[in-house]
């Protein structure tokens, strides 16, 4: 696997938010989910930059949705995780768990 096909830190967070939201995943719920879970302010621009990269890698697909009045008549773009994306998340999780395992500094919340 090339470096280009791997998930970056923020990309992984976006993928996890997408999986958690399921259907109806577009910019607003994704950024809200990220803010809620990480406790950090998230720039919508960076969420879309990550989503575009993920789409280029084939981990995510997207389609334009309906326009609503509260969006000033602008369409939403819905995102969905592909089977390849899901596999990549699992592999990243496996690798991270292996790296995590057996590190006394990071166990029991002492670090």
């Amino acid at each position, binding site marked *: 696997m090339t470096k280009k096909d791997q998930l970056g830190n923020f990309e992984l967070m976006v993928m996890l938010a997408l999986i958690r939201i399921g259907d109806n995943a577009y910019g607003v719920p994704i950024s809200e989910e990220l803010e809620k879970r990480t406790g950090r302010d998230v720039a*919508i*621009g960076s969420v879309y930059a990550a989503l575009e990269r993920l789409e280029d890698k084939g981990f995510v697909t997207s389609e334009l949705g309906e*326009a*609503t009045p*509260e969006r*000033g*008549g602008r369409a939403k773009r819905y995102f969905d995780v592909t089977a390849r994306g899901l596999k990549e998340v699992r592999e990243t999780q496996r690798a991270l768990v292996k790296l995590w395992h057996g590190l006394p500094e990071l166990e029991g919340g002492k670090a």
Partner: protein
Amino acid sequence: MRWAEPPSIATWLLRHFGSSPNNNDVVIGDLDEQYQRGRSSFWYWRQTAAAIVISFFKEVWSHKLLTIRAVALGWAVDAVSRHSVKLTWRLLFALTTWSRFWLHNWITMAMVMVVPQVFLWKILLGWLVAALHRRHRTAMVLANAVYFACFSATHVRVLYVWLIIHRLNYRMDTLVFEMVSSIVPVAILMGGGIFSIPRDGNSSERASLKA
């Protein structure tokens, strides 16, 4: 629900300077939606600034070769324009030796002959870059504007240092030079259609939805 108008200048900036070819309108929609839910104007402005900067760097980073090609094209047009401006400058000095009228009015003549010429060349530069990079037009035109803005600013500073080293006074021609430098990015953006291209395809539909 009553529609609260988001900061219009911020929306305008994002609509015209947002570099994401697919998601620019979607990002504005997301920001509008969050604004309707009670986010502040400060938040909207911050998100807008971040979206413009992030989308620009994302486009440049994802298309490095294309960006180098676009800036190289800008360089080529700039080299030709410099030659043309140099010829005009020489003609101007020839006129000052030919007539006393030109001698006293050479700054006016410089304004009339050189500044519009530089402006037109940069408009052509912006137009060429936009025409040859249709899919990534905003990012490539912006890359040229940023590059030439930095280049001109450096050039002006070098000129100031040169004046200080040679103990020369601040002259009118440096003012002309500074003026020309400041219009360069604006002309590139104008030529690239950043200010004028209607990128709001379904504005009438949106107006009815807002109502």
